[in-house]
């Protein structure tokens, strides 16, 4: 269970959001560019700091403006960046092994995501859809308590995107952890979201 109640002053508006995500939910953050979606993810993961408020994950306080600001490394959050941010100088296996908890679980994930045959390849030699699956495997291999996905499907072609949607829903059923998905696409939001939070200039409508 994730509880977020944060405020942050941005250049053009005040970000002010308050929501919860339970472990059987995929919450979609939906809204136009520059409405504060990525900023919310960055606050949750610890890349930026909110001005006030608090963030709690499974009874752990990640952030409390008054006293707590847990370092990124200790938050146990998997983050899928928009362009996947794979380590270009490391093989697919080394990417996934970088933060893995156990080797057997990492290998199981690779099988599950059909990327086990790519273990020795480098990120520049695999397709967009494969990169995305490697990034998901890499994030899940750390056995996070929460998964954040920042427009993970925007760079994929239609067919691959369809398949990735199915895969995400299947994975979510398998490893029940709260998921927050940021997207521009209304169809995607409708299809994947247990709930949709419409974001406009920093507030949920």
């Amino acid at each position, binding site marked *: 269970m994730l509880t977020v109640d944060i405020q942050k002053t941005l250049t053009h508006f005040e970000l002010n959001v308050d929501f919860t995500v339970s472990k059987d939910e995929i919450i979609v953050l939906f809204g136009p560019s520059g409405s504060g979606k990525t900023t919310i993810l960055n606050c949750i993961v610890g890349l930026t700091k909110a001005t006030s408020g608090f963030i709690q994950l499974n009874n752990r306080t990640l952030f409390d403006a008054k006293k707590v600001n847990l370092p990124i*490394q200790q938050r146990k959050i998997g*983050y899928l960046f928009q362009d996947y941010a794979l380590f270009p100088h490391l093989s697919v296996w080394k990417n996934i092994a970088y933060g893995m908890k156990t080797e057997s679980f990492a290998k199981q994930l690779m099988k599950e995501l059909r990327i086990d045959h790519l273990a020795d390849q480098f990120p520049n030699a695999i397709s*967009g859809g494969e990169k995305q699956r490697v990034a998901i495997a890499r994030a899940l291999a750390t056995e996070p308590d929460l998964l954040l996905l920042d427009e993970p499907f925007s760079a994929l072609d239609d067919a691959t995107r369809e398949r990735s949607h199915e895969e995400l829903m299947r994975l979510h059923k398998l490893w029940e952890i709260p998921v927050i998905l940021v997207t521009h696409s209304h169809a995607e939001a409708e299809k994947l979201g247990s709930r949709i939070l419409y974001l406009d200039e920093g507030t949920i409508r």
Partner: protein
Amino acid sequence: MSDVNLSPLWLSFQTAAIATVIVFIVGVLLARFLARNEFYGKSIIEAILLLPLVLPPTVVGFGLLYVFGKNGFLGRFLLDYFDFQVVFSWYAVIIAAVVVSFPLMYQSAAAAFKNYDPNIENAAYTMGASKWKVFWTISFPLAWPGLLAGLVLSFARALGEFGATLMLAGYIPNVTDTIPLAIYFAVESGNMEMATFWVVIIVALGFSAILWLNWWSKRNMMRYAERRKSK
């Protein structure tokens, strides 16, 4: 030419190598820090770091004399409390080389750290990696082509340093006579043969450094090209 004194060659290599090691460590850490942190006055600090690149070496030498000279604030302190004189010493050659070659290292390193997506480092942090682990396993290897280019450039610059060295270290045979100083004083005393000998050596060194550098940067530009194309 058989009785040529090779001391300038060894001295130049020795001082340039030590200066390059210092410049590399400080330059890389500073560039990484400044590339990932925004704060008030950062541009001014960066401008000061790059200043020796555009100033005449004599001005740099003058500044160093002001600091390390017998009446300079640091020079006075070292002389009074440690009985240690910087000017006209081997250390002065290194200090001059460090100051003039630092901007080249810094510039290459700063560009190298800005050349890849910072989210690659952020991804590693989310996976629980410490700052040092991220630096050694992600930042350093990804920036390495640029860092090595900076290393070679600053070594070549340190090897060729003349103006600031002359002002701070003077020309003392076997102590501060680097190749560029040896050339100048050989010409001064009309020993053209000796001057030509050193000129050929330093041109050959500089030429090979640049030749290698071009080859290296061309090779490394292609390294992650596919990744960029697909973005």
